[in-house]
């Protein structure tokens, strides 16, 4: 009845050239070692996801519950906010990202709140990415709450979470609109909303159509992407 699956299809894994990881939650990090093994691609992630032990670089075990640095990766670029990694074809810069707490109701009764903390797995190593590629700037903010430090970014393409209305683990639609106003990107892709997880069809619910309408009122382009959609920019 239950199953585990990869969102990025396995058929894509071997042709990946670089892997970017915004934080250590399972819905973001689960397959990094497997994709890295299949592709031999380097991993770029926040510093707190990685520990250097002897000659090995170990990342937090992707499929364990706690914080155990036991998974070796061949090529890792741990970065902090403001740090830059230059590859031949593109550049990555670390951006401030702050993961919100996770608030859950179990069986409709038991309330559970997990706050991000250095000793807590939720949001571990949170970082956003500014990617400069093909004369364009792409910003991905991971599961972040609104941060004033993004004000001067002005990307060509902004990937922004909007599903934090109930749980507030990320921005909600209104906060994401505030971030859009601050950054004035040319194009916006809302993400991390209406996700299926456990028994819920729509964890992180959001009104993407309303978000799109409000973005378009600012004279900016908003593209709602469904599973597997692709666009040319």
């Amino acid at each position, binding site marked *: 009845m239950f199953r585990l699956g990869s969102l990025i299809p396995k058929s*894509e894994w071997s042709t990946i050239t670089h892997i970017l990881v915004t934080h250590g939650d399972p819905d973001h990090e689960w397959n990094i070692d497997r994709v890295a093994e299949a592709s031999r691609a380097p991993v770029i992630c926040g510093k707190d996801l990685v520990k250097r032990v002897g000659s090995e670089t170990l990342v937090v075990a992707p499929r364990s519950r706690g914080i155990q640095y036991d998974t070796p990766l061949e090529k890792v670029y741990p970065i902090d906010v403001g740090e830059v990694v230059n590859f031949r074809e593109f550049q990555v810069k670390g951006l401030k990202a702050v993961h919100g707490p996770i608030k859950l109701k179990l069986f409709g009764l038991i309330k559970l709140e997990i706050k991000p903390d250095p000793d807590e797995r939720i949001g571990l190593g949170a970082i956003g990415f500014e990617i400069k590629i093909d004369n364009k700037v792409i910003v991905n903010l*991971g599961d972040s709450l609104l941060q004033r430090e993004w004000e001067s970014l002005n990307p060509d393409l902004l990937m922004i979470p909007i599903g934090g209305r109930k749980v507030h683990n990320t921005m909600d639609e209104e906060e994401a609109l505030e971030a859009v106003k601050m950054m004035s990107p040319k194009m916006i892709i809302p993400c991390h909303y209406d996700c299926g997880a456990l028994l819920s069809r729509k964890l992180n619910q959001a009104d993407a159509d309303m978000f799109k309408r409000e973005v378009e009122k600012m004279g900016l382009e908003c593209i709602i992407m469904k*599973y597997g959609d692709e666009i040319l920019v």
Partner: protein
Amino acid sequence: MKIKHYLYNAFIIENDKVKIAIDPDRIYICSGLVVSSRSQNGAL
């Protein structure tokens, strides 16, 4: 440049010889709901 999206924060950015995966992740849900969830989002 091509951008692909796979729900959550999972993206692929493809340009020339580069293929960047952002947050290669997992989904863990009731298989019946996988279909519902993804068809609701227009695919699979």
